[in-house]
């Protein structure tokens, strides 16, 4: 195995992130409690640096490196930028919450950075092994993060469930990979694709493998029926961790899906299409229906995530480039909305108070009309109200579905969106029409207030000019 200097240049963002994560880990050990902010600042600096490396290395055409283990292409670079940006925002939102609960420790940031590294590796993976490597790095970091507040029984239980089910899913994914490898004899995704194209004898075995891989993906996305961990983990984990789990990893999962099913197994799309349809429709149905019955907003957003996952998968099942672009657009938009949604929960929380009940949103408008407005934008966008970004995401996916002839699935999706609108609008009703039960003033850091405002307004203004982001998604797919 020989490595050229150019190989290292392509992998520079990841190398930088790894080095810095280790550095932060070491530095944090020697920091006195009063200087904990330095860890935070270093972590944020790391993310900015990584993003700058990604921009500097921005590829014009796909480049393979590290003996074809690693690919750098525009889709990857775009997703990586969003991952870094979202983790950056998540760290801003989290700091105050963690400080109030005495959880502002180096572990959160180091694990967060390592999870980010895992995501970046997943995004750029070009063999089964690198995908698995990135996925495990992400998952293991997340298991630990969920249990960050180790004195909380709820958190520990959630971490336990997440870990056991994650291990199960991981095993299934690995099993599917091994079957594909057994049939094709290849690990490199491009080679796998060629082998599948040439193979006409082992179709059943290949589909058998694909089922296991789809199950693994379904778990990572939180698609029904592999979604059971989602509500419990969302509720049990400290809110900053929930915020992390619900946002950036979806981008990585999208990349993983693209790498595995599209780059590696495009020729089997007739088979995985059906599986995706089943997962999508079930996710939209269960997600939207059960969300209605929730009284905890974190659980409600968990089911909302499940329904959004169902929706974004609709774009993938068209198996067209424009469909993938629509799904990618949807994923990015979803992460932005989810980021904002949990951001508002963090904003309302304070020492000894979680703000995770729906009733905690009562009369928010009377308490702080600006953030009630931000939440209004977020909820309306999630419900898919024009002209907000969430509407355009739904519109992009639906128009691709209809173009590809999946009229009935599009109609089903719209119906479930209508049902889903109920629980988003209920939050708005609580904020604007009910009397506040809690009259404590909001105490959030200025940086968080600014970041959250930017987050909400971005959804409004990007919604007014949606074409830009959509075009970027389309061109990044080559």
């Amino acid at each position, binding site marked *: 195995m020989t490595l050229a200097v150019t190989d290292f240049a392509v992998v520079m963002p990841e190398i930088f992130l790894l080095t810095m994560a280790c550095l932060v880990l070491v530095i944090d050990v020697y920091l006195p409690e009063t200087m904990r902010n330095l860890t935070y600042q270093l972590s944020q600096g790391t993310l900015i640096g990584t993003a700058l490396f990604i921009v500097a290395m921005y590829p014009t055409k796909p480049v393979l490196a590290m003996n074809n283990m690693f690919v750098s292409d525009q889709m990857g670079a775009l997703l990586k930028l969003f991952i870094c940006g979202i983790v950056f925002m998540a760290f801003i939102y989290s700091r105050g919450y963690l400080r109030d609960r005495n959880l502002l420790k180096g572990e959160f940031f180091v694990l967060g950075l390592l999870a980010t590294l895992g995501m970046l590796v997943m995004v750029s993976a070009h063999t089964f092994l690198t995908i698995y490597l990135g996925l495990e790095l992400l998952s293991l970091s997340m298991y630990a993060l969920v249990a960050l507040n180790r004195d909380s029984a709820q958190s520990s239980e959630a971490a*336990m*469930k997440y870990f*056991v*089910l994650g291990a*199960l*899913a991981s095993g*299934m994914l690995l099993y599917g990979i091994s079957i594909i490898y057994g049939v094709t004899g290849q690990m490199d995704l491009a080679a796998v694709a060629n082998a599948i194209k040439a193979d006409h004898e082992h179709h*059943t075995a290949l*589909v*058998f493998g*694909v*089922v*296991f891989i*789809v*199950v693994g993906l*379904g*778990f990572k996305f939180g698609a*029904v*029926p*592999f979604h*059971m*961990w989602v*509500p*419990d983990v969302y509720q049990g984990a400290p809110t900053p961790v929930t915020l992390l789990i619900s946002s950036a990893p979806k981008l990585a999962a999208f990349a993983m899906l693209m790498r595995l099913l599209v780059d590696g197994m495009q020729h089997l799309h007739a*088979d995985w299409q*059906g*599986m995706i349809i*089943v997962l999508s429709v079930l996710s939209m149905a*269960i997600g939207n*229906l*059960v*969300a*209605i*019955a*929730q009284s905890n907003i974190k659980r409600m957003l968990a089911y909302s995530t499940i329904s959004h996952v169902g929706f974004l998968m609709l774009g993938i099942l068209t198996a067209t480039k424009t469909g993938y672009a629509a799904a990618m657009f949807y994923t990015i938009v979803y992460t932005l909305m989810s980021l904002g949604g949990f951001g508002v929960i963090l904003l309302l929380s304070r020492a000894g108070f979680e703000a995770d009940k729906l009733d905690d949103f009562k009369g928010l408008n009377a308490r702080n009309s600006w953030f009630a407005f931000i939440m209004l934008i977020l909820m309306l966008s999630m419900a898919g109200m024009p002209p907000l970004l969430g509407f355009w995401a739904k519109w992009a996916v639906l128009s691709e579905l209809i173009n590809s002839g999946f009229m009935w699935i599009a109609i089903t999706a719209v119906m479930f969106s209508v*049902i889903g609108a*109920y629980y988003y609008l209920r939050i708005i009703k609580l904020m604007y029409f009910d009397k506040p039960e809690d009259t404590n003033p909001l105490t959030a850091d200025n940086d968080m207030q600014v970041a959250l405002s930017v987050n909400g307004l971005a959804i409004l203004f990007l919604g007014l000019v949606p074409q830009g982001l959509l075009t970027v998604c389309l061109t990044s797919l080559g």
Partner: protein
Amino acid sequence: MQNVYLAIVLAPLIGAIIAGLFGVSRRVAHTVTIAGVGIAFLLSLFAFKEVVFGGHTFNQTIYTWLVSSGIRFEIGFMVDSLTVMMMVVVTFVSWMVHIYTIGYMHDDPGYQRFFSYISLFTFAMLMLVMSNNFLQLFFGWEAVGLVSYLLIGFWFTKDTAVYANLKAFLVNRVGDFGFLLGIAMVLMYTNSLNYSEVFSHVEHIKDMTVQILPNTEWSLMTVMCILLFIGAMGKSAQVPLHVWLPDSMEGPTPISALIHAATMVTAGIFMVARMSPLFELSETALSFVLVIGAITALFMGFLGIVQNDIKRVVAYSTLSQLGYMTVALGASAYTAGIFHLMTHAFFKALLFLGAGSVIIAMHHEQDIRKMGGLRKYLPITYWTGLIGSLALIGFPGFAGFFSKDAIIEAVHHAHELGRAGSGFAYYAVLSGVFITALYSFRMFFLVFHGKERMDEHTKHHLHEPPAVVTFPLIMLAIPSLLIGAFAIEPMLFGDFFKNVIFIEHAHNAFHAEHWHGIVGMITDSFAHPPVWLALSGVAVAYYLYLINPALPESIKQRFSAVHSILMNKYGFDQFNEWFFAGGARGVGGLLWKFGDVKVIDGVMVNGSAQAVHGVALIMRHVQTGLLYHYAFAMIIGLALLLGVFVIL
């Protein structure tokens, strides 16, 4: 010229906007609107000269609103001799009414609003007549309807006024429904909304048939023309859609003159004349038009005899005269219809404004039984009123004489051609002449002659209204007297409407070789019944209301059944109240209580919400919180996917 036409249309609109929206004083309001309409009138005269004497007709699109599936929605002007004639009449009458309004509405708190409305009306009416396509025609059609609605309900605190404007609005909706269907048919079969394109395309579709009910083939042209005519029936108040016009007298008198006599109600007549290339192709539709017109002309005239409200008498007279115009259209004498439209616009506006002048002098007393002998108090109103009445009854030499005789002549011609319904129509319009004379002079004698029946207080204050009121009367009296004699030769026998109104040669009642000059026509008329019928009508009125005033009362007692039918206006209103209004309320109530409350709210809205909520409550129990259940669910999912996609 395009700029001139734009200025004609926009000057009144700008006046209306300034007077209506800028909170200006009374003086500014009437100055700008009168100036706006005045500009429109003078430019219309210029346009008249250009088109009639210069021969420069104009047909151009000004602005394309949108293009959808190759159909162009445009704003454009088609200015030919028919249009300029309408433009001059509309702007002139409107101008006179504007001036008159200064006096009539002097004490009204809604002074500026009124000026704004009538200027807006002028704009809308000009858009209607100047249009070169069906879309703009429909815009103008609806816009004049809107202003009419606003003006009938001008005194919106009066219950009767609100009732009347709602009634006008609803009845016109019926007509507009037909009109819209007719336009849609034109669009469907010719693929264009532009007049010239439609008329040039009509050759290709004239023999087509349509199937509306199963197994019945109807001529396309007949269905199309009747639908368009239903629109005209609403706007021009033809039986049975006439019921709104008498009630529209709830509005101030100036607009009764302008909108509900001279201009807007004639829009239907104008439209049919404009569409003459279509109507000429359907004998059936023309017969339909003819019969409807004849019924209106005769039976609405009867009602004029029993009315006691000065404005309502004139209103029924308007209905009857609109019937005459419609009869002319049905007899293929579009030119005669338009000719009568023009003369009628002048003398009917004159009569209404004269009635208004009487009303001012009588301190808003409108009952003619409480008037009498006003001749010596209101000399100008008296003389102009006399001219108007003589024009209306068709006294030889006056404007109405020429137009009405032409119509009777045309119906006679149609009868000779054997057009269905023309026999009835001929006798209807002939007896209508007598009726017209009777009710006109009944009113005239009761108001201006005989005993003074008003109370002392009113009598004490009787005097001629100010110059702003009498000046328009005089200005309108001149054309009422003269316009017929001037216009008959070019309009009916000459080339005035050449290439504008199309009449099949056989249908044409007026040929140049039959024209023997005005004097010839007048002397000739004494050999025919209409003049004698008119004179006898006047004589009967003179006898009944001046010589032997007790007689009408005893006739009324004697024929109480007939009288009560007439007083109830043949029961149209009662029937509409009971059948349409009551029926609609009944159906509405049913749909509300059953359809909306039970089905839509109960089952569909709340029912589906409850169903979703129920499902959600059940589904959440699947989430047990037990780890092995979760793992089991994943395995089940895996097994299902394997089962469906690998084994099957």
